[in-house]
Structures are given as C-alpha cells and as structure tokens.
C-alpha cells in the first residue's frame, strides 16, 4: 500500500492529546473486592456455556470467493470464459456461479491483509474443503485452529497477549453448530471483509474487465463501483479492484479505494484450488500433558430420522433445494445461546440445524421453539448496520400463510426468517431472494 494513500483524518489529535492528559482517578479501595464478590454471585446464578460466536464463517467467505470465481468465468467444466476486455453479463455470471459452486472441492493458501488500522493487518495460512473442514494458522507463529465438520469439534492452540504473550493456550470446543444463526465454526478475523467485498462485487456488475498480469501470471482485473457504508464512510471505499488469476479463476487480490486512495488490500498468496488435502490437515493434536480448556456448545450430530425424538417436534425439511446441494449435516441442541443482533432474542430451545452443501458453498435451514418471546431477525447484520428486510408471503409448505422477512445485504449472509405457530425458522446462505423463498415454500414436516 502506498504511504500516501491515507484515510482522511477524522480525529482532532491535538484535542485528543489534551483530553487524555486529564486526571482520571483510580478506583476506590473496595472496587475490585466488590466486583469479585458480585461476579461470584453471578456465577452461582448463571449457567455459563462456551459461546464463541465468530464474525463471519470462513465458509461464507469461501463461498463468496467461489461466486466471484464464477463471475469472471472460471475455466472449468466447459464453462464459458472471458477472453478479452468485456463486462460479464448477468446471464453469464449466473452460468458461471452454477458451474463453479458445484465443482470447487478445496482451497488453500495464505491470506495477507493490510489496512488503515493496525488491527486490519496480518497473515493467515488457510485450508478448507467441501465437507466444511478448515484449518487456520496465524497470525502469530504457532497459532492454529482446526474444525472437523463431521464431529463439530474445534481445536485451537493460540497465543494470548493478555494472559501471557509467549504461552500457547489449548482449547477444544465441541458440539459446535453447523453455522448461523447459531455459534458456528471459527472464521477468520479478516474474511469478513473478504466475503463482503466479493458480495459487493457480485451485487454490482463490473464496470470493466481488463486483462493484466499478477505475480507474473495472466489475470483479469475487475473494477467495481460500490456504495460506501453510510455509517463509516471514512473507512469504506467507493471502488473495488479485484484481480483474478486466470489459471485458477480465484480472486487473488482485492484493493478497496476511496476517492482514488487505497483503503485496504487483501490478497491470497500461494493459492491452490482443488488439491487433495490429507485428513491430517484438519487435525490438531495437543502436546501430552497440555492443559486443555474444554467447552461444549450443545449441538449433537444425529441422523435426520432421529431429530423428532431429540427435540420433540418433526423437523421442517426442504422438499426442494437448488441443484447440486446435498444434506451434509444434521445437528440438534436442547439449548443454544440466544441469536440476534446483540444476542437479544429469547433463549434458543430445541434447535434443529440442517446444513446443505454444494462444493464449498453452504446454506442452512434452522428451527427453534418460538415460545412466548419477542423475536427479532436471528441473522440480522452486525451491530452498527441497518437491514432493510423485504416482506415475503409464504404460500406453500408447512409455513404457508406466514409472513417471512428476506434480507440480502453485504454485511450478513442472505437469509429469510419467519415465525410459525410454534417455531422460528431461518433459511440462510449465499442464495438469491427467489431461491430463499422457494426453499422456504418447500418446507415440510419430516
């Protein structure tokens, strides 16, 4: 990133320095004693559960990447490809999406990020496969996190600057939900941007597609005009330049600009598509005698025909799914952490989560008891963003007559949610509005 490419200052540094010099008292002598006592009281009365909720699933970013691959014409499976400077038509884009998503089986490489804030930068090695397994390494040497989709277990070895900079902490998190709105497997810190950028690229037709070279390899360069975030315009660009490796079809570099100045750069080095990854890629063995912190999110993998016995109601299962998707995971939980923008929904009880996969893409159908609570969108965009849901009348299937809300946003995965007589239902994944509605209209008791 060019040193001159800076974000316009939004802070009064001189005033800030003076304000920070103002005297601030320490706590009173009883503060920490009182706090410890009150927290101990809380512990006695609160059932605590491991509840790591990660910003955005890696799979979402990967799926978005796969979609972007399709946008520019991944030369696989006889798909048409762009051979010169031209814009991709919507029909061409859709054709490539279908082709790419059904064939992508694995991705690995190194993600390198740079941005206006110190926390925006870093390097991560990653690998993921079509089963949903993943492995992340970094940003510090020795930091590793793995997810085994078949068992729903996350294992990690990570450094903690607050608890001891040179010490690795080991953790095993079992019973992990297949994905949102429940606490899914780990994601990167950064692919949230990666996925959002690529979604933005998808939402707008590239204004130009040019041939170029990247790292000495033939590539396409897409220029995409985007709408800056209205809440944080100073940190949100108005153009994306996406470089796509022609041999693999993967986006290998994304540059976000604001008024011509670079805000962020994300790039993937050493990308490998569809390599056969050994099973050990997604395994993490702890050293003998290591202290391991265990937690259980409460989701259990069960066969579909045992769901009703586990949760006390017959699950809602799609009678139709888009071509190529298959039911990959079925998980149930008697209790899960609350959903919603700030976890402000009622407790999730008797949850059923069905994960459908096609290549590295995934969508989920979830149900949970409605009880008497006041429910808001379980898959709402993160804090600080405002969704604009579209009312969607469901006319068929088990939810016929219900009014659903559909949200398609760059800040959350596209989704539909509705409350039935007894259940709260979500359908979420990188799908378009009509597909979300069609799946919802096909839901039936199994």
């Amino acid at each position, binding site marked *: 990133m060019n040193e001159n490419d800076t974000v316009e200052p*939004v*802070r*009064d540094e001189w*005033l*800030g320095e*003076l*304000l*920070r010099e*103002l*005297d*601030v*008292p*320490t*706590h*009173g002598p009883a*503060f920490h004693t*009182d*706090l410890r006592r*009150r*927290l101990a009281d*809380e*512990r006695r009365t*609160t059932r*605590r*559960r*491991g*509840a*790591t*909720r*990660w*910003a955005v699933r890696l799979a979402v970013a990967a799926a978005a990447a796969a979609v972007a691959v399709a946008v520019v014409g991944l030369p696989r499976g006889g798909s048409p490809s762009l051979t010169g400077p031209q814009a991709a038509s919507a029909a061409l884009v859709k054709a490539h999406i279908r082709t790419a998503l059904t064939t992508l089986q694995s991705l690995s490489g190194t993600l390198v990020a740079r941005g206006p804030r*110190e*926390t925006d930068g870093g390097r991560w090695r990653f690998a993921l496969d079509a089963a949903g397994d993943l492995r992340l390494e970094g940003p510090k040497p020795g930091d590793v996190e793995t997810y085994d989709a078949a068992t729903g277990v996350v294992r990690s070895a*990570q*450094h*903690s*600057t*607050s*608890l001891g900079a040179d010490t690795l*902490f080991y*953790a095993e998190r079992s019973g992990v939900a297949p994905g949102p709105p429940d606490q899914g497997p780990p994601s990167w*810190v950064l692919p949230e941007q990666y996925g959002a950028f690529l979604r933005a690229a998808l939402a707008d037709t590239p204004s130009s597609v040019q041939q170029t070279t990247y790292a000495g390899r033939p590539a396409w360069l897409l220029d995409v005009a985007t709408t800056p*975030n*209205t*809440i*944080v315009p*100073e*940190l949100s660009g108005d153009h994306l330049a996406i470089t796509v490796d022609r041999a693999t079809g993967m986006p290998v570099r994304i540059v976000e600009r604001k008024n011509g100045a670079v805000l962020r750069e994300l790039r993937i080095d050493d990308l490998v598509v569809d390599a056969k990854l050994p099973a050990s890629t997604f395994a993490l063995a702890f050293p003998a005698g290591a202290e391991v*912190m265990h*937690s259980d999110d409460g989701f259990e993998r069960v066969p579909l025909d045992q769901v009703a016995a586990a949760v006390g109601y017959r699950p809602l299962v799609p009678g139709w799914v888009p071509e190529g998707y298959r039911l990959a995971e079925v998980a149930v939980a008697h209790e899960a*952490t*609350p959903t919603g*923008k*700030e*976890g*402000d929904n009622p407790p999730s009880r008797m949850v059923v989560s069905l994960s459908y996969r096609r290549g590295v893409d995934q969508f989920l159908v979830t149900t949970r008891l409605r009880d008497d609570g006041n429910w808001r969108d379980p898959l709402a*965009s*993160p*804090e*600080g963003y405002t969704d604009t849901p579209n009312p969607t009348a469901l006319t068929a299937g088990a939810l016929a007559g219900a009014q659903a809300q559909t949200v398609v946003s760059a800040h959350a995965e596209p989704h539909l949610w509705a409350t039935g007589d007894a259940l709260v239902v979500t359908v979420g994944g990188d799908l378009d509005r009509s597909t979300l509605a069609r799946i919802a209209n096909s839901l039936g008791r199994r």
Partner: protein
Amino acid sequence: MEELDQVTLARARRGDDAAFAALVHHYDQGLRALAYRLLGDRARMDDALQEAYVHAYRALPRFRGDSSLGTWLYRIAYNACLDELKRTREVVDLESVRDRAHAAGDEIDALSLRQTLAAALDALPTEDRAAVLLVDANGFDYRSAGEVLGIPEGTVASRLNRARAALRQTLQDERKGASNR
C-alpha cells in the same frame, strides 16, 4: 484502541475468571476516563463501572463478535453512566458549570490548561462530551462511537463539531488571556 486478543476473549466467554480479569484490566483505564468525565465523581464512576462489568459478565456469552469487544463494552459502560445519572437524579446545572468554566478563564494565572479543559468539558452536554471523549480521546471511529452512543454516524459528527468548537474556543480564550496577562 487496542483490542483484547481473541483467546482471552474466548476464555472470558467461557467463564475463565483470569481472562475476565484481564478483560477488565485491558479496558478499565479508558472506561474510567469516560465514566469519570461523564459523572464527575469517583464514587459514581465506581458504581457505574461495577454495573457495567457485571452486565458485561452476564452478557458476554451472547456477545456476537460482530462489533468489536471495545465498542460493545463502551456501550454498556455508557448506558450504565446514563443510568447512574438518572438514578441519582442529579440535574446538571449547565449555567453553574459554564460559570465554572468562565471562572477558570478569569483565574487563568492559577489554573492549568488541563483544568480549563476539564471545566470546559464539564460544560458540554453529556452527549457531546461522550462523543468527543470517545473519538478524540479514545480513538473510536465515527461508526463505533455511534454504536456506543446509539446514534447515527452523522449525529456523531455534528456532536463532535459542536464539542470541538466549544472546547477549542475555551482553550483559545485561555491562551489569549494568558498572553494578555
């Protein structure tokens, strides 16, 4: 504002006392500065932050991680301060505070720049004060400050403009007064 690392956060979510203590330690200085400047009293600052930390401890398992932990924690603390202001039913007498600020200007020989700034800060409405503390002193961007304060980014900007203008004017007056003396 440097964020707490993910491992400590994950452990704190799972009820690890040492990790939660690390979390408190990590953010406490900034939260004290905000609470003290909003409430103007150490005992009230402590009361508000006790409530904030207990609330955070209770809600941490539901923290989605979509906004930063710092933003989330500051929002809890800011709300606790507002509750504290309501609870104690103390009506801020803006006129008297402004008088204090002006007095500070009159007695500039005896007062430091910081005291003048502190008095001018006290004279601001709570909302404007919080905005300038979050953005200029604590390094929040507008979006995050808006999340903390529960207002749109544009409103953050307008509050900041107002607050900065008032503070700079006071400091400018003080400098003029000092040079004339």
